[in-house]
């Protein structure tokens, strides 16, 4: 710091940091950013705004100094507290807000969040029409600006109990008409109900939204690009209002993302006809007969999620080989995909997906990148077909048991270039299955993440080949009795039962780059060149320590490893013999 040149250099470095701080901070954890704040006064000035930018932590006692720096806020309350007021008054530059409050009542939500000071008397009696007639309540508070309804707010997500949920849309629309929430582009509303374990407690009744109410809200916010309303009942209007032709009127051309839970076909159709530009659709339907509407109105979809609420409504299971009844029961689904050529993501929950549907998906949607089917049965034959044919498929997440035959698949090539694979269970009983599993996984050279929920019947040979096993046994000479099992003919018996995993944790944490066995081989072929995350759950105690060393060798990008013990990124870095990623 003595010479002028050096001073100039550190000055320019500082300027670079200042200008690019936001970019750099995006790679850092809050603790790292905070350490930078403590370096010097100058650094404090540069880094403090970055530290406060995203608050998804506790609300600080005093927000008067830093509140205006917060951009993204994620708040969750079981009961309303005085924190709500602190945020409301001080965080006036919010861009996005997520607020979850199970304990709100209607009056304290209106008071604390919406900032309506004097709640109308005989609240419960106020009807929707009554709300419209009230004199604008938001202006009653002229001295106080309200962060929750700020014009800087771009995205708003509220999860609130039924009694708040039922007035939410009309109250927000009212605020908008009062000149608030002018910048809102994305809205998410969720009904949050706490299900008590105690039986005597009465569950609050689920909230009901009428379709005309939703349309009125959308009319008030014509700039919205994303609208989401889930976990409640959406119904057609009752009585006289139904007579009104609600289908005519404006189209919501800006909306590209819609998440909705219609009670039946009719409500969904009203919205579907008015939103021609939706490309991302999430449905949480009560009935499964909405498919023709999707096909008719949303032919540009890139993303479709279909979540059934309950098994009660899902289709009956159909035999995987019973093609005739599949064709009959699932004709809507089979037809659907032929009309969605741009589909990239498809996600379902609690619907049985038979072979014919998946074949139709694979044939009709060449851009399909992601297929997720959770909490449901999915046809193994169908998934095999997808793996053979979907040449863009990167993410596959299915909740089913995959046996030997699934991976053998008559040794046909799988063309899908998978990057993330998540299976509920893999059950390999024969050595052919084990070898085929390893070959398939190694064939996906871009695979980043492999997660298997139940891996108790997998052997370590499903990831390590014979050369690896030899290396492992050399590495762990002192534990030969167990490593010999690696060469056992019986796949089921090659696990160590005697070795305590605590020993292993000890030896790994003391490794610091030096190994207990022989030195690392000079060059190891990276069989899993991109793998960052390997998580096999429910593995019985496995492992001669050498297995971990070998895995770290053949998986050069590994950051998280879970077998019978879990290794974090830090542990793995230590095993690789470095403390800082780049030196």
């Amino acid at each position: 710091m003595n010479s002028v040149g050096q001073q100039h250099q550190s000055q320019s470095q500082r300027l670079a940091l200042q200008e690019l701080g936001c970019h750099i901070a995006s790679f850092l954890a809050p603790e790292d950013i905070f350490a930078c704040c403590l370096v010097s006064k100058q650094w404090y000035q540069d880094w403090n705004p970055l530290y406060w930018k995203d608050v998804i932590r506790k609300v600080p006692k005093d927000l008067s100094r830093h509140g205006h720096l917060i951009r993204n806020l994620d708040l969750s309350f079981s009961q309303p507290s005085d924190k709500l007021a602190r945020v409301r008054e001080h965080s006036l530059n919010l861009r996005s807000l997520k607020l979850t409050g199970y304990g709100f009542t209607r009056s304290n939500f209106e008071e604390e969040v919406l900032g309506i000071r004097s709640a109308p008397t005989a609240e419960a009696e106020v009807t929707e029409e009554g709300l419209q007639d009230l004199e604008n309540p938001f202006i009653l508070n002229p001295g106080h600006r309200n962060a929750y309804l700020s014009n800087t707010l771009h995205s708003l997500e509220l999860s609130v109990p039924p009694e708040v949920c039922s007035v939410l849309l009309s109250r927000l629309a009212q605020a908008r008409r009062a000149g608030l929430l002018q910048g809102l582009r994305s809205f998410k509303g969720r009904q949050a109900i706490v299900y008590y374990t105690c039986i005597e407690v009465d569950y609050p009744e689920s909230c009901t939204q009428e379709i005309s109410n939703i349309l009125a809200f959308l009319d008030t916010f014509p700039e919205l690009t994303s609208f989401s309303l889930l976990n409640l009942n959406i119904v057609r209007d009752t009585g006289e209002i139904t007579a009104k032709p609600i289908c005519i009127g404006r189209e919501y051309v800006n909306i590209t993302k819609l998440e909705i839970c219609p009670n039946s076909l009719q409500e969904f159709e009203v919205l579907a006809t008015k939103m021609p530009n939706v490309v991302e659709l999430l449905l949480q339907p009560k009935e499964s007969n909405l498919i023709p509407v999707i096909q008719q109105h949303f032919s540009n979809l890139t993303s479709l999620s279909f979540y059934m609420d309950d098994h009660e409504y899902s289709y009956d299971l159909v035999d995987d080989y019973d093609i005739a009844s599949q064709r009959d029961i699932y004709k809507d689904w089979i037809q659907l995909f032929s009309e969605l050529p741009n589909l990239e993501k498809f996600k379902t929950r609690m619907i049985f997906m038979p072979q014919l549907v998946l074949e139709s998906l694979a044939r009709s949607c060449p851009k399909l990148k992601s297929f997720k089917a959770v909490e449901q049965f999915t046809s193994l034959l169908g998934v095999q077909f997808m793996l053979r044919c979907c040449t863009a498929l990167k993410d596959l997440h299915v909740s089913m048991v995959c046996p030997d035959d699934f991976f053998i698949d008559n040794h046909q090539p799988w063309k899908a270039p998978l990057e993330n694979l998540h299976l509920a269970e893999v059950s390999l009983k024969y050595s052919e299955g084990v070898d085929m599993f390893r070959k398939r996984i190694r064939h996906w050279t871009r695979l980043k993440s492999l997660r298997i929920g139940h891996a108790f019947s997998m052997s370590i040979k499903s990831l390590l080949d014979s050369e690896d096993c030899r290396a492992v046994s050399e590495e762990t000479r002192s534990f030969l009795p167990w490593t010999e099992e690696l060469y056992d003919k019986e796949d089921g018996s090659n696990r160590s039962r005697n070795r305590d995993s605590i020993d292993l944790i000890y030896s790994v944490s003391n490794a610091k780059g030096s190994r207990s066995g022989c030195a690392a081989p000079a060059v190891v072929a990276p069989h899993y060149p991109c793998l960052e995350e390997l998580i096999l759950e429910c593995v019985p105690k496995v492992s001669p320590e050498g297995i971990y060393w070998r895995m770290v060798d053949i998986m050069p990008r590994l950051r998280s490893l879970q077998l019978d013990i879990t290794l974090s990124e830090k542990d793995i870095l230590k095993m690789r013999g470095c403390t800082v990623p780049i030196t």
Partner: protein
Amino acid sequence: MKVTLESSDGQVFTVDKEVAELSVIIKEMLVIEQANQDHPIPLLNVGAVELAKVIEYCEHHRNDPTIDDDEDYDSRKKPIEMDDWDKQFTIVNKEMMFELILAANSMQVKPLLHLGCRYAADIVKRMSPTEIRDLFQIDDDFTPEEQDKIEWEKQWTKL
């Protein structure tokens, strides 16, 4: 087609147009000054050593798909692809890397800027304030009281 670039210290480099166009600034300049391509493009904030290094980077990445401009910071949290070449490329001393970040920033070479910022973040990651001070030769100008105050403010935001 070739383009010539001139560093702040007057050295002239000739590169393929598509290589130079990885820099948003040069790309825009080429559109504006189409007629005037005989003169080298002056880069007043970039020295010859850094420019050579930036060009080396652009040459290697000439065929990469472009990064989206309006990419928001959330998507940056995802780990970016860094191949072996990139790793080799970042094995330079700290000062050089900061100069490169500055150069990439002034020339708006987005992927290199991205790589550099990640490099800078990796340097300070998991370091204590004292370690950072030592590394950058910065004096601690906080009084103990000020330090306590900042710590106190922080405790309310702990996870």
